[in-house]
């Protein structure tokens, strides 16, 4: 019962954070509300017994990535007058909602058709570092290596792009 309350609270928080993201005009405010979403998602992961992911969500997402974003926003020293005019965004928003209602309802329909089993009790090792690590380095070794390559490429790319070299037209 307690878990359900927690779920409801985290869910509401994350939705509010997301709505904040798309409504706040200044990116700084949007980033702050996204952090709320991230943290509440971390809570949800914990509810799902995904311990390692819970930690990673907090450290990598809410920590590293979000602080990187915030850092850049502050680094660029964005003033309100720098922001683009977004006159039609309410219209886009309403249009988007209209368009997304069928998509969401279809997906929800799909989800509803899944077996409605209650979450069973899982073993104590579920979602732990060791267990996930075993899966990761046995079954998923090759994708893992590829991802590491991807990170390397991204690193080099970021350096090249943001470096001093002039933009080649």
């Amino acid at each position, binding site marked *: 019962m307690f878990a359900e309350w927690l*779920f409801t609270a985290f869910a509401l928080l*994350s*939705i509010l954070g*997301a709505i904040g*993201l*798309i409504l*706040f*005009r200044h*990116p700084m405010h*949007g980033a702050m509300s*996204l952090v709320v*979403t*991230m943290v509440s*998602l971390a809570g*949800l*992961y914990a509810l799902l017994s*995904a311990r*390692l*992911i819970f930690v*990673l*969500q907090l450290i*990598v*997402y809410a920590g590293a990535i979000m602080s*990187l*974003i915030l850092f*850049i926003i502050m*680094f*660029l020293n964005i003033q309100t007058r*720098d*922001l*683009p005019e*977004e006159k039609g*965004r309410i219209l*886009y*928003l309403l249009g*988007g909602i209209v368009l*997304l209602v069928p998509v*969401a309802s279809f*997906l*929800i329909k799909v*989800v509803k058709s*899944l077996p*409605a*089993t*209650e*979450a069973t009790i899982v073993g104590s090792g579920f*979602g732990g570092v060791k267990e*996930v690590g075993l*899966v*990761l380095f046995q*079954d*998923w070794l090759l*994708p893992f290596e590829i*991802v590491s390559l*991807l*990170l390397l490429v*991204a*690193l080099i*790319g970021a350096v090249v*792009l943001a470096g001093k070299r002039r933009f080649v037209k």
Partner: protein
Amino acid sequence: MIQDYLILSIILFSLGILGVISRRNVFTVFMSIELMLNAANLAFIALSRLHESMDGHVLAMMVMAVAAAEAALALAVVILLHKHKGKLDTNVFSLLRG
């Protein structure tokens, strides 16, 4: 119960799409994409719980890694954009205009 998680994931994902469509601010668009990734992660984890398998966790980790890579690159692009155009408007990128 798991269904509720999945429905939440759908809602968050839709909100992410809405952000991408309706906003012109580069940062907001970028963060909306992050939001969608998170929504996907939530679905992974929820389904992983449902099937009691940890493959979903692995996938979620990979998504995070990709997100990190993406963040690095995208932010570099944003810096460049700001450097050259002095703007944060996605409408500046309209080279594809027919």
